[in-house]
């Protein structure tokens, strides 16, 4: 039977484009979009997407009994977090007056500094929305074929601060460096949206579907 990629559907965010992108890059895999913990546990690899607020995200994960499943699955299955799905992998987020999260990576999630003029005298806007470059700070199979300093699409007001620098896989700048990608063992996560980042985003998703940590 074809390998299965489970996309965790907890009602937060647009799985349309992610599902479509995964189908495009992994024709040989079976795509399972589900909120059933048992069905997801039977998949070979998992994707945790997400947009919106962290409190509601954690509430929904708990309500659907998915929080423990994700932590359990992330012990051995290749697991990919995207955007809010990356942020909930940290221990704590400052969003919504502070919310404890899954704790797969030590560290927390903080808001971008209040908008103030950058070097050109122009104010920085929050959300950080649009295309930004990602500097690859470590070699990793997920970067295979992706040039350093490539552009990816971001949209977020908070960003992860992993406490272990060895977990940082890529940095972006707004206005200071922040973690745009993190990884450890069989987990990798992106703050940006590969499914919205044209060909290079597709390449990252393809690399994930082949990744054998």
């Amino acid at each position, binding site marked *: 039977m074809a390998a299965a990629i489970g996309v965790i559907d907890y009602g*937060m*965010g*647009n799985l*349309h*484009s992610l599902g*479509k*992108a995964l189908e495009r890059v992994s024709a040989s895999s079976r795509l399972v979009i589900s909120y059933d913990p048992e069905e997801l546990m039977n998949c070979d690899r998992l994707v945790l997407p997400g*947009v*919106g*607020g962290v409190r509601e995200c954690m509430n929904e994960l708990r309500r659907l009994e998915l929080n423990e499943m994700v932590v359990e699955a992330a012990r051995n299955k290749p697991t990919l977090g995207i955007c809010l799905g990356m942020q909930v992998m940290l221990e704590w987020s400052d969003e919504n007056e502070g919310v404890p999260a899954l704790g797969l990576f030590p560290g927390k999630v903080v808001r971008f500094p*209040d*908008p103030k003029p*950058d070097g050109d005298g*122009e*104010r920085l*806007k*929050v*959300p*950080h*929305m*649009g*295309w*930004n*470059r990602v500097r690859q700070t470590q070699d990793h199979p997920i970067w295979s074929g992706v040039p350093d300093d490539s*552009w990816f*699409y*971001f*949209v*977020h*007001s908070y960003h992860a601060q992993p406490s272990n620098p060895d977990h940082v896989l890529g940095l972006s*700048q*707004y*206005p200071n460096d922040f973690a745009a990608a993190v990884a450890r063992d069989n987990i990798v996560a992106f703050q940006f*949206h590969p*499914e*919205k*980042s*044209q*060909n290079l*985003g*597709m390449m990252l998703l393809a690399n994930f579907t082949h990744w054998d940590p």
Partner: protein
Amino acid sequence: MLAKRIIPCLDIDRGRVVKGVRFQDVQDAGDPVEVARKYDYQGADELVFLDITASHEDRPILFQTVEQVAREIYIPLTVGGGVRTCADVRALLSAGADKVSINTAAVENPGFVTEAGGRYGVQCIVVAIDAKRVNKKKEPPRWEVFTHGGRRATGIDAIEWAQKMVEHGAGELLVTSMDRDGTKAGYDNELLRAISDTVAVPLIASGGVGTLDHLYEGLEEGRADAVLAASIFHQGTYTVGAAKEFLDGRGVRVRI
């Protein structure tokens, strides 16, 4: 650092891409799916898809066209026109939109912006502001908000409205100058600058692009974070790639 975004706009009327002047005299500009695919290929940073007669005719947006367009592109897609309820927002996101643009419904009920942002995340809520200059000559500039595809005056000051919408949870503003729309005379940079300098969320400039210089002016003088244009791309005057090369040559950060 973050790049400035170039966003082709597809105005849709009854399933076709159209282009009007000052919101009227509409002409056909092609099939939405083909046009969207072309801009994705040319390196567009996002696409905006506006059902320009939905609000005016009080009918729901064309979900099927949204689905067809979303299936073809791997860049963010914003959809607007006749978005009135959270059910509309959800249906558009499910059809493949990444953001929805709210205009008339925000004026009728500002709380709707807060509700939609709270439920689906502020990053997917774009508030569209159609503004027209209303000051007399020699008076300081003043702009008023219009709704229903530019057909109805509201008496609301556009700058105050922009601030209020951000307080209500708009994640981004799409500001169209009705005086300039379709004229190819350039954006109303004074309007853009007045809004961009007072709000903390990204601003998309719209209405009036006729040359590549206009894009540059919108970003520099108007201090917009993104520039939206329709006819210069639809008519093939410039490709998105040519626009980016031009801006790059002028020292603007763009994704090439």
